[in-house]
């Protein structure tokens, strides 16, 4: 019973830290009925976007032409991915077997805040923003397909924990704070060779929640989500046990668990003064035509109202729904073995609506002693190609903590692509 409890609580740290691959084996040898855990995670990462570039963009400074060229040279023609996330939460577990007459059931209540900004963009979009179109006269700038999604929401999670079946499941009530969803299948800017005309072909949509109220307490949307965690123990005969097989007693031991997890699979209905813009148009501008050389009013060469009418589609205000950036994950975590200080680990996750690729990882964990352990892994996917990760864990009798990163190179080098940091604290009563 305790083992299951420990397992669930240990792995449920990962529930709130979806981008972190590191479970926290903090609750071994626990005998507590109330557990509180909290976490904070932040990262930003972009394919080809070096830390030198991102640091300038976020913390200020001049982005030189050399730095822009360095970044552009690392971008692909299309589907360059970028993500920025901040996520924090706290969760309370009551595992005192008081629910349903004490038969293996517990409950958890969690509160979580998440901000996620992601994008998939083309190399030409980067060029248009950071270089302009002056060196592309007579050429096209294909700024699409481009996607941008920015969402902030808070969720209140109610889960049931079934210790016997090694699972936790429940639902969340979600408050939508803000959202922008921009999709441009086509977004092409053509500049004629003699500068006689520029043409913008756009096939795009923009969904935007209420822009007048975007603070933490803004209630611009409401939704719901499902959450579930399920552990399958993986058992095997030990060497000692195998030796006894001829005595017709087959004794198997749990060597690890497969964990299946769904986090925040749901939606938000943005109903408070939303805006929807959709366009499928071609706009050409040839400049201002001088028709009468001697009686020409050139005070308004570019009529911004006409330009806006031509470029900006009409605003619609009907409510719309967005799918939450749910995380689907599967992982294998070996059971801690006092006799073996090194163990393997592997897993994969995919976050939908996040402009990211699936992540696959594998690594090793090293137990320094009963309280301290560390792990190092390699990751493929997400917003980068290959990354290395590191985790350091402290497991005390009443308190545990973890600090981890999925982007070790980014944390120590300006040549890295992005940064990632994850803190977790767990308290046991």
């Amino acid at each position, binding site marked *: 019973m305790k083992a299951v409890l420990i397992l669930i609580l240990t792995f449920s740290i990962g529930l709130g830290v979806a981008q972190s691959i590191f479970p926290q084996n903090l609750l071994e040898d626990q005998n507590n009925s109330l557990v509180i855990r909290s976490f*904070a995670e932040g990262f930003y990462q972009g394919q080809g976007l070096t830390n030198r570039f991102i640091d*300038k*963009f*976020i*913390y*200020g*400074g*001049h*982005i030189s*032409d050399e730095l*822009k060229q360095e970044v552009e040279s690392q971008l692909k023609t299309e589907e360059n991915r970028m993500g920025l996330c901040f996520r924090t939460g706290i969760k309370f577990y009551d595992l005192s077997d008081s629910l349903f007459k004490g038969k293996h059931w517990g409950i958890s209540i969690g509160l979580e805040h998440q901000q996620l900004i992601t994008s998939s963009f083309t190399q030409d979009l980067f060029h248009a*923003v*950071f*270089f*302009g*179109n*002056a*060196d592309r*006269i007579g050429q096209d700038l294909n700024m699409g397909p481009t996607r941008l999604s920015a969402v902030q929401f808070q969720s209140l999670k109610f889960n049931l924990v079934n210790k016997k079946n090694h699972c936790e499941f429940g639902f969340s009530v979600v408050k939508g704070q803000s959202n922008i969803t921009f999709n441009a299948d086509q977004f092409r800017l053509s*500049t*004629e060779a*003699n*500068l*006689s*005309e*520029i043409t913008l072909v756009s096939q795009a949509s923009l969904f935007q929640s209420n822009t007048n109220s975007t603070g933490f307490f803004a209630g611009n949307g409401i939704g719901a989500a499902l959450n579930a965690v399920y552990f399958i123990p993986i058992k095997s005969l030990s060497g000692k046990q195998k030796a006894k097989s001829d005595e017709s007693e087959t004794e198997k031991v749990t060597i690890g668990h497969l964990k299946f997890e769904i986090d925040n699979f749901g939606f938000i209905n943005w109903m408070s003064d939303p805006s929807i813009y959709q366009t499928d148009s071609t706009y050409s*501008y*040839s*400049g*201002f*035509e*001088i*028709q*009468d*050389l001697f009686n020409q009013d*050139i005070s308004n*060469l570019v009529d911004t109202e006409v330009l806006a009418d031509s470029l900006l589609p009409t605003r619609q205000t009907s409510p719309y729904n967005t799918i939450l950036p749910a995380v689907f994950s599967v992982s294998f975590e070996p059971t801690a073995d006092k006799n073996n200080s090194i163990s393997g680990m592997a897993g994969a996750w995919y976050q939908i609506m996040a402009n990211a690729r699936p992540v696959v990882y594998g690594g090793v964990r090293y137990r320094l002693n009963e309280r301290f352990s560390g792990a190092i892994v390699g990751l493929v996917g997400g917003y980068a190609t290959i990354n290395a990760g590191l985790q350091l864990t402290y497991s005390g009798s*009443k*308190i545990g903590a973890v600090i981890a990163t999925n982007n070790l190179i980014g944390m120590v080098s300006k040549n890295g692509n992005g940064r990632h940091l994850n803190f977790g*604290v767990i*308290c046991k*009563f």
Partner: protein
Amino acid sequence: MNEQRQFILSIFERMKQLIYFLLVALLYFASCKKEATTWTSEYAAPLVFTSLNISDMVNDSNLLVHPDSSLSLHIEREIYRLNIDSLFTTPDTTISEVHAVAFPGTISVSAGFTFISDVEESTFNVSGAELKYISLNGGQLNYEIISYVTGPTIDSIKIPSATKHGSEFLTVIHLEESDGTIPTTVTGSVDLSDYEFDLTGSDGLKYNTLISNISTSIDPTHSTPVDISNADSVRINVSFENIDPGRALGYFGNELVEVPLDTVSIPFMDKIIGGNLDLDDIDLSLSITNGIGVDIQSTVNELNSISSIGTVALSHSTIGSPINLNRPSKTGWVVNSSEYTTTFNNSSSNLTPFIENLPNQISYDTKIQINPFGDVNSHGDFYHSDYPLKADIVLDLPLCLGANNLTLQDTIQLSVDQDTSQIKSGTLKIHASNHFPLGAEVQVYLSNGANGFADSVVSQPIIAPAVVNSFNEVIAPTASELLIELDTEQIHQLIHSGIALIKVIFNTTNLPNRIKLKDWYHIDLNVGATIKYKHEVN
């Protein structure tokens, strides 16, 4: 239990430390954004486009297209019009009359009784003219009535010799009672448009004479009689203002109108600061039209072409010689104006040097004698505002020319309201497709404050002429690109001063041959800009 409490307290203590750490970390990261994020991008976009032919450069009505598609410039300008004040000056003096009862002592007058009724003839001095009749297009009669009558009165001004659509001029004014010491005063005006005045007086033999009738009555609604004495006077002041005669009859005198040496500016021509313009045959006509019913003798003493190059006086047989203009005839008020025309050309005058001097001013000195032989028509002079005395010139200039470094210079004023501090440099690219057999070198100079203008900012200044055949006819256009490049300092300089100097030097193909400009010649211009812009995100 106590242990558990201690533990919980220690947990909260650690959580406090953690929150403190997170807050410090947050402040650290927030304070890391010490400066704005900046980068520079360069954007390109079209600005303006146009296609210009000759008719876009001159007034359409001035351009004549000949069967061979060649063009002539036909310019008609009125250079002089005789002001009616030169013939006679309408009266603007104030007529002041005092009216009172004719008998001594005091009488009691009941309501409605008219105690003053005076008919008068007033003769005006109209600067040497003797008018029998005048009608007005506009003007007004101003009056001021000052009354010492101790009861309310109704005063009327009637002019039987002034009619409008058959009705006599009549205006009625109400005055409040005076205390006998401080008078009651009323002022007003009456529009005189369309009034006709018979100025021949009561016997029909006088000139410049008006008949008027002034009367004063006690207000019929006044309830009590009013005591009137010969001290209870009523003063009426009348004046005329802004008189605009429409028609007039009489004798207009024999004034000598001398127009001293005067100049007429030709605005566009002062932009030409150098070079030569070789023109083909030019015709200039001077036409004098007389619609005023008087005999006129006019003399043009001199006519000069003035430019920065020098002054060229027009020499022609009519210059300095008197020109007699016959009196026009009229039927009713329809006037058959008389005309006098003289033509200047290369054979009869020095017109070509006169024009090729590229004058920015024309000066002239003339005199006009009205009725040089006196009142030979027995007060039969007439005037109708629709038929003036005026002088026109007509210039026929075939657009067959040779331009040799013909240099035009002008300044342009700029007013930029937008914040341009983030623009780091800019380039104007002017693509020209030239169908004119005329090339140009364009230079743009920026103001350099007190030092005048700095070096030109045009790095590619040449617009090449179109390709011509052996007859100097255009057979193909030529493409050129002008580049005007401005750095940060020059942009700020341009915006700060708000002024730039443009100089264009024209040369025709195959000089010294003249080329004929055709109606289909044109130039297509596309102006685009590239701007280096510094983005700043805080």
